């Protein structure tokens, strides 16, 4: 998908630059000096600016400029490369200076220019957005200089809005607990069924398929045994994102890690034909009911993009922080709930308690990777120590509720830790 629109003809409204006034000033001063002092040789000094002024009349300035900007693609993932091409055609201009206005956390590299037929010059930049969100690229501010530098006109070329999806967290495979309810999935469960993963053997009963007979076991025991396979079930994953605060450096802040973890989990589990839902708390309560299929990935990504509170939401202040109003269809029975939070206050604990009351055994992914930097031996250092203790107490409290806390720094693979955490949830606390 390309954005930026077609070629447009922009009228040029030239204004005099300071150079024009200065040339006139030097010429006038010199002529006046020559007249007052009656020194003819000083007119040589006046001849220079005078010739330049006469050689570049206002009538010789161009009237219009033809410009077009193309940006591709308009949707990308953090770190992807976009190409911006700008076509400029101005006849009679001395030079055209282009200043590209970029959104925050986006780097541009000038990639050269090509002169095409018909006097059009195509300039190319390579853009790399490094932070997720919806960003506006441009405008490209053009300064058309003509008349020997005596006149300049400004033209703004709108480019396009881009959608930068968060980079997905690394997840080697979609792991799942053993107790799964939904049928027709790809995760082997404890139940015996018609999957492909070996689950054990049992004595042959009439009606069993001949191809299921385990001949080696049958020969050892002198009677027929058949192989059993684990049933393959689907998995309902509900991601609960804590967007109350955003701590840390832009690009690796808690909110950045939260959305990357959510995107990575969604991508992996949807690929395994599971259903994924999403709920956020910390700003206005938002949710997305669990669903499967590739479209759900885009729905989740779009929902995740909206978690960063905008100025209106920040100004509103009194917003619903909890999950109390979450509809029941949002949390299907036996769904696995994963709470992604920086654990910076008690709200995640309240959320986990609420989920436990509804019969769910959530897993908490802790995405806080930074600590406040304070001077040594100051009162603030004491405050930081108290804050650390508070976080430890929060983690212990979650542990006492049977909720595993999985720290994630945004770099490592979540699979192993996720599997360990899922298996460590006590069966009696599962729904």
């Amino acid at each position: 998908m390309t954005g930026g629109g077609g070629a447009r003809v922009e009228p040029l409204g030239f204004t005099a630059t300071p150079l024009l006034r200065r040339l006139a000033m030097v010429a006038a001063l010199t002529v006046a000096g020559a007249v007052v002092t009656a020194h003819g040789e000083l007119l040589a000094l006046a001849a220079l600016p005078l010739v330049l002024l006469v050689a570049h009349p206002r009538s010789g300035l161009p009237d219009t400029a033809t410009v077009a900007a193309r940006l591709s693609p308009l949707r990308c993932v953090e770190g992807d490369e976009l190409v911006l091409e700008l076509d400029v055609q101005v006849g009679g201009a001395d030079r055209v200076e282009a200043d590209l206005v970029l959104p925050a956390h986006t780097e541009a590299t000038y990639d050269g220019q090509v002169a095409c037929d018909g006097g059009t010059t195509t300039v190319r930049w390579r853009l790399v957005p490094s932070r997720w969100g919806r960003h506006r690229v441009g405008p490209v501010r053009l300064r058309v200089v003509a008349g020997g530098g005596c006149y300049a006109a400004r033209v703004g070329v709108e480019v396009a809005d881009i959608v930068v999806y968060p980079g997905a967290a690394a997840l080697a495979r979609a792991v799942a607990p053993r107790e799964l309810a939904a049928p027709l999935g790809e995760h082997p469960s404890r139940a015996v069924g018609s999957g492909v993963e070996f689950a054990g053997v049992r004595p042959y009963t009439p009606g069993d398929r001949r191809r299921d007979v385990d001949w080696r076991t049958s020969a050892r025991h002198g009677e027929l045994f058949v192989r059993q396979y684990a049933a393959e079930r689907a998995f309902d994953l509900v991601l609960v994102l804590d967007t109350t605060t955003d701590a840390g450096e832009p690009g690796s802040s808690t909110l950045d890690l939260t959305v990357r973890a959510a995107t990575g989990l969604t991508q992996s589990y949807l690929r395994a034909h599971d259903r994924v839902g999403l709920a956020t708390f910390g700003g206005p309560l938002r949710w997305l009911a669990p669903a499967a299929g590739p479209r759900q990935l885009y729905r989740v990504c779009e929902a995740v993009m909206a978690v960063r509170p905008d100025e209106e939401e920040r100004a509103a202040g009194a917003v619903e922080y909890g999950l109390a109003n979450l509809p029941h269809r949002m949390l299907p029975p036996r769904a696995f709930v994963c709470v992604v939070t920086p654990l910076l206050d008690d709200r995640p604990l309240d959320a986990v308690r609420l989920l436990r009351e509804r019969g769910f055994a959530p897993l908490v992914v802790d995405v806080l990777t930074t600590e406040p930097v304070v001077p040594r031996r100051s009162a603030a250092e004491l405050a930081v120590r108290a804050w650390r203790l508070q976080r430890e107490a929060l983690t212990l409290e979650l542990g006492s509720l049977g909720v595993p806390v999985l720290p994630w720094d945004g770099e490592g693979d979540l699979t192993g830790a996720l599997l360990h955490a899922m298996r460590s949830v006590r069966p009696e606390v599962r729904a």
Partner: protein
Amino acid sequence: MSGRTIAVLWRVLVVLGAAGAVVVAVLPDPARPVLVAAGAALAAAVLAAASRWRLAGTATLGLVTLTVLLAAALDASAVRPVQVVAAGVLLLATAGALERCEAGADRPTVTVVRTGATARLGPPVLAVGAASLVAVTAAQDVVPSVGLVLAGLVAAVAALVVGIRVHRG
């Protein structure tokens, strides 16, 4: 070359251009008022390059012009035609560098379209030729004639008027 380096180069050119113009004008035997004007011009040039204030830039050009005028007015025999032309060229170079220096954005810009060297250098070369012709003519050892002087001055004023009129919108 990075945008920051180019911006620094334009600033250096402002100071060097102004310094060159006043040095060419005041040598070899500067009078005290000329030295004062030259010093003021240099100070204004440094201020203009450092601060990018348009007022300082305009003051720089005015003071450099005043220095050349003073040098010629106080001791006409000390200022040769080539000095006047050289000072004029350096003065215009300073004006051009000031324009680039003041227009320089905080972010680096890309120059997209640039006219050919012939189109860009034609008018300045013509201006230097015309200035040289005027300087050489003025330096001719002829008997001063009131009519000739008046004709020259009228021609200069007329050129000034025409130069300004072609830039009225």
